């Protein structure tokens, strides 16, 4: 009898252990989320200074639409959009910094490509800017189209970017011999091009527009109309933490969908009493939209209140700074653009 009792207790103990593990798994608390909440700040990798996307001012405050993605995540998981530690990274360092665990989000005008997504331990969570590669030349050169490029042209760019590869594809397909001059830092590229080392400067068009503002005389340079590649830029996370991936993805989606429904940082609180259930879900007044991430119900309301919707972020960082006043493809699908995110429900 006692013998059986002993077996029974061990069986119960085993079941308890298994149950404990499964509830642990069901709570779905992401390891990255847990670490972030323990540290009290989101570790975010950004560029070394690209106006409009991620740029630090004289007192060290970061602004830009890439920066806003990290701020949104901080607002969602920590309740305060300012609790972000920004790490400026070169194009070369960025993926290693993410895979080695030095940062938890890489929001650094990074192009989503198959090989990056599949190969190197990364997962792209979405697109916060649709871009394409272009060329900048000096106005005085009289060049108004890439069809006027001739053999021997020298092109300045960054190393370790899709730009370097697109540039080769472009010049090869046109049969033009060119001299690639690739620098590690964007500032070095600009300095070299500005001094006359290169005839053209090539990178994403948004980057060209932003870097132009840094030149000695911005009006002396023009961006050619041709776009030679698709460059969907978006935030990246480490592979293997699906919940964290979802948090970052839906933080970005919340900003875009908020714009769609006209929810802004100013009116977010009053939207709680809206008649539209889709709006109520976006401000945490209906449904259990945070539980699946291990967050409370007002995580999305905090994003909208503290960071604003995508349109506000774009206006503040890119339009009002004169970089790209025209939203182009980065307009909502309802207004002729291609910004279209899955519904939050």
């Amino acid at each position, binding site marked *: 009898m006692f013998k059986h009792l002993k077996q029974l207790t061990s069986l119960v103990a085993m079941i308890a252990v298994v149950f404990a593990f499964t509830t642990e798994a069901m709570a779905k608390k992401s390891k990255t989320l847990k670490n972030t909440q323990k540290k009290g700040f989101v570790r975010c990798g950004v560029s070394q200074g690209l106006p409009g996307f991620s740029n630090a001012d004289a007192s060290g405050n970061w602004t830009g639409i890439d920066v806003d993605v990290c701020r949104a995540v901080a607002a969602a998981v920590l309740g305060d959009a300012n609790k972000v530690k920004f790490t400026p990274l070169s194009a070369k360092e960025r993926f290693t910094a993410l895979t*080695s665990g030095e940062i938890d989000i890489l929001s650094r005008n990074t192009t989503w490509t198959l090989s990056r997504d599949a190969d190197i331990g990364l997962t792209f969570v979405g697109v916060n800017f649709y871009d394409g590669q272009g060329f900048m030349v000096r106005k005085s050169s009289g060049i108004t189209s890439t069809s006027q490029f001739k053999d021997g*042209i020298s092109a300045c760019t960054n190393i*370790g*970017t899709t730009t370097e*590869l697109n540039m080769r594809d472009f010049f090869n397909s046109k049969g033009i011999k060119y001299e690639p001059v690739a620098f590690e830092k964007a500032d070095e590229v600009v300095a070299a091009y500005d*001094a006359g*080392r290169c*005839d053209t400067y090539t990178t994403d068009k948004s980057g060209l527009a932003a870097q132009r503002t840094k030149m000695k005389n911005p009006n002396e340079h023009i961006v050619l109309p041709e776009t030679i590649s698709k460059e969907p830029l978006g935030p990246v996370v480490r592979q293997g933490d699906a919940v964290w991936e979802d948090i970052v993805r839906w933080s970005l989606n919340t900003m875009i969908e908020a714009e769609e429904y006209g929810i802004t940082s100013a009116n977010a609180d009053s939207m709680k009493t809206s008649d539209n259930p889709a709006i109520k879900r976006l401000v945490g007044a209906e449904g259990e939209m945070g539980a699946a991430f291990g967050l409370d119900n007002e995580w999305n309301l905090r994003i909208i209140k503290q960071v604003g919707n995508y349109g506000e972020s774009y206006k503040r960082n890119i339009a009002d700074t004169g970089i790209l006043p025209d939203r182009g493809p980065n307009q909502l699908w309802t207004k002729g653009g291609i910004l279209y995110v899955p519904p939050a429900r």
Partner: protein
Amino acid sequence: MDNRGIDFGFGFLKQEASFDMQFTLLDYDGQDSYAWAYVVALLNTLLVSFLGIIFCTILGVIIGVARLSQNFLIRNSAAWYVEFFRNIPLLLQIFFWYYAALRALPLPETAEPWFGVTYMTIKGYYIPSMIWENLNVFLSCLIAAIVSIIFIRIYARKLQEREGKQLPVFYISIGLLIILPLLSFLIGGVKLDFELPVLKQLAQTSFIFEGGIALPPELIALVVALSLYTSTFVAECVRAGIQGISKGQKEAAASVGLNPNQILKLVIMPQALRIIIPPTTNQYLNLTKNSSLAAAIAYPDLVLVFAGTALMQTGKAIEIVGITMLTYLTISLSIAALMNWYNKRIEIKEK
């Protein structure tokens, strides 16, 4: 590594690199493999190190000797040169030569020729290239000249040991080096033509030179900065070496009837070299390792191309950084081995 979703392997070396390089010694195209990109980038590193070592040695010896000059002006300018260039961080010097000094150069369309046929511009230094006909005949004549010089030297030494006679070996060598290659032109059918760089217009205000050889400004800035910086250390080694020989040696040599040339060649230099070589080896190693600063100014060396672009495109950080470290280790150890061999040859043979 599994945790982070990274896999380990060297298979990527066979993949197509698909990026271009600005300056290569061998044929390279984006269609080639990463392995070939590695070889080509490695050669660029070796080229910079080689040029740097040659120039820093020449400059270093001149400055080192100048520091011991009797002339106040020469002695002090040499001292200032050493103190100035060795006390500014190398990276700053590279930036200076690239961004400040080279930027002051003219654009191709306004460049005045140097020596009539070469052009120094912001886009590079353009020099004529040589077009050979029957190059192999010329080369074999050159090799024949060098081989015969070696034999004559051996013969001259034996002659001196046996009969005490001295042959004017130096003049014979120079003569052979001129006459044999010259003969190849006259009767060997060797022809040499020069292709001159010609200005070409790309757009209204953008020009380049075509034809000839173009040395990119990145290479020039890097070699200049590395040579100037390292030459100060070499100069100090040379000065120490010469000062390390006691005055008595020179006086003793003079008293047995050697002329000043022979004193320097037979008495002072063999002893000074023993002091100069080991610390100079260190400087050569430093120069080679410092050449990796090329990455800062877009010279496509091993670090910029392989540990930069290739690492980025493949994401194989551990493999690529490992290969790069092993490569520098191998280069450094080879230079050290070579210099140690030379040091063994010239050190005192104790019996």
